[in-house]
């Protein structure tokens, strides 16, 4: 069991390294941001397995990270809004979906 959980954590860290590559190449800011989000979710997974492997106290950390998982993305959409304090939903959407609209 211990052996297997070590392997799974190593696999998760490998998956995390792939996401780091996406943070590096982007190209859009949203790409980098969502790769960071993926790293956060993977990190929660690693903590859950560490809880089994080492000490259930790791769940306290995992719970905190899950609670605050959306914070950075919220900061990102705030900063990306036109005045730096808004919400992307306040404005009409970009031209892409008008072009692709199917209905």
């Amino acid at each position, binding site marked *: 069991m211990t052996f297997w959980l070590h392997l799974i954590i190593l696999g998760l860290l490998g998956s995390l390294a792939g996401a780091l590559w996406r943070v590096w190449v982007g190209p859009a800011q949203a790409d980098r941001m969502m790769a960071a989000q993926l790293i956060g*979710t993977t990190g929660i997974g690693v903590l*859950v397995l560490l809880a089994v492997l080492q000490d259930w106290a790791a769940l306290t950390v995992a719970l905190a990270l899950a609670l605050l998982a959306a914070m950075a993305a919220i900061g990102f959409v705030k900063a990306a809004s036109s005045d730096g304090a808004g919400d*992307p939903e306040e404005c009409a959407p970009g031209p892409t979906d008008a072009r692709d609209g199917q209905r």
Partner: protein
Amino acid sequence: MPEGLADIATIVLTGIGLVFFLAGTVGLIRFPDVFSRLHALTKADNLGLGFIVLGAGFQADDWTQLAKLGLIWALALLAAGTVAQLVARAALRQEGRE
């Protein structure tokens, strides 16, 4: 549940979880545009976390650990549903501008 069975369940479930995490990363690397990549991330990862949480649950010593694991997954889902919509929308706006 006998210990052997619980261990097998943990091994199978965490293995499935890892596969979904890897799928999310492969999608994040391979898919051609921002929005398709967001699909990969949101769906595959949270399912992966769900299986890992479930697998860890079979090793829990008491019900509070199970409940905490459930709460972790519920909060991760709430964050994922919110972040996917917000980041997709922000990307839509930035695409129109840049």
